[in-house]
């Protein structure tokens, strides 16, 4: 019998992959094991090793599942609170942006009218409009964005810890 045949039989045995072995291969292996004592011994030892592994009975701390479930509940609540906070910041940011744009569009003619009545130069009232109207509203939007980013950073640190 050639060494290749023994090697082939042992490769099939080591795979332990009965469904992955074709019926022809299974029949061949069966026949080979019937005729070859060393390979049969090899098959028996392999089966004993696999059965031996299956007979290991590890002790699992009975409280482990409960502790893990409690940790999961806490973390899920924490994540939900973070999600709600992020969503609040995001909505605030969107509203601030909206108010900045729409408010500016609506207020612009009013400022122009008052500036004409007060006989201000265009650069004067436009600077005032930028400083006292656009800038505060844009700053609020930016602060909300920064708050959201800081919150994300904190939650990442918490989850790493």
């Amino acid at each position, binding site marked *: 019998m050639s060494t290749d045949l023994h090697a082939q039989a042992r490769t099939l045995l*080591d795979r332990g992959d009965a469904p992955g072995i074709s019926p022809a291969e299974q029949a061949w292996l069966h026949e080979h094991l019937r005729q070859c004592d060393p390979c049969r011994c090899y098959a028996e030892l392999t089966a004993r090793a696999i059965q031996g592994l*299956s007979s290991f009975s*590890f002790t699992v701390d009975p409280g482990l599942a409960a502790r893990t479930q409690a940790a*999961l*509940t806490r973390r899920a609540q924490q994540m939900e609170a973070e999600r709600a906070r992020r969503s609040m910041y995001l909505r605030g940011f969107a509203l601030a942006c909206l108010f900045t744009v729409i408010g500016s569009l609506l207020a612009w003619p009013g400022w122009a009218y008052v500036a004409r009545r007060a006989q201000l130069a265009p650069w004067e009232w436009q600077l005032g409009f930028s400083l006292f109207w656009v800038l505060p509203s844009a700053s609020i939007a930016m602060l909300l964005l920064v708050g959201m980013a800081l919150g994300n950073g904190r939650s990442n640190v918490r989850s790493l810890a």
Partner: protein
Amino acid sequence: MLAATLTWAGFVDQASEARTISEGLRRRDVAILHKLVECYQYRLTRYLLYLTGRQELAEDLFQETWLRVLERGSQFDGRSRFEPWLFSIARNLTMDHFRRKKMISLDSPAGAHQENNSSSGAQQEPLGANLADRNRPSPFELAARGEDAARLAQAMIVLAPIYREVLVLRFQEQLSLQEVARVIGAPVPTVSSRLRRGLEALRAHLEVATPEGGTDVH
């Protein structure tokens, strides 16, 4: 099997089970997670014990794994079985843990020496050596029931984790070679080779007890 405990929800086949889990994880449904923890507590702990060889560490990593499942649950698409995904998370966390501790690398210590005859990981200490040096019995010795298992427990102590993990994934978790390959992030031939080397080590320990069973190839 999860299906056995979740029959109330009508999860009959594995595909629908995986889909249900996927949807639950995407919604961050804590009830589904609690059931999964119960279902997989023994199997996941056993896998982590095979990987780390330490009870306390395995339990810590067990908790970390489930927290990671909660956080990354949306990444499980439900198109394949849940087990390989779960075990790959546990494995990555274990690798991260050992990298942080700079104690061992699952892929490079004694295992790599045996597998590739490479000496690049010479500075790293194999986990098996840690287990063998300890005064108290290893989890494998504690878990051994019967004569063969006691001998195998001795083999497990000195066997590199990369071999222990393919043995548990293939023969205890009943994952296919392809699924094992996905969990450990290695090609199927590497998995086959590690299985062969792992079984070789176990057979050698059993053979010592039964010397009449020669296995020489003609």
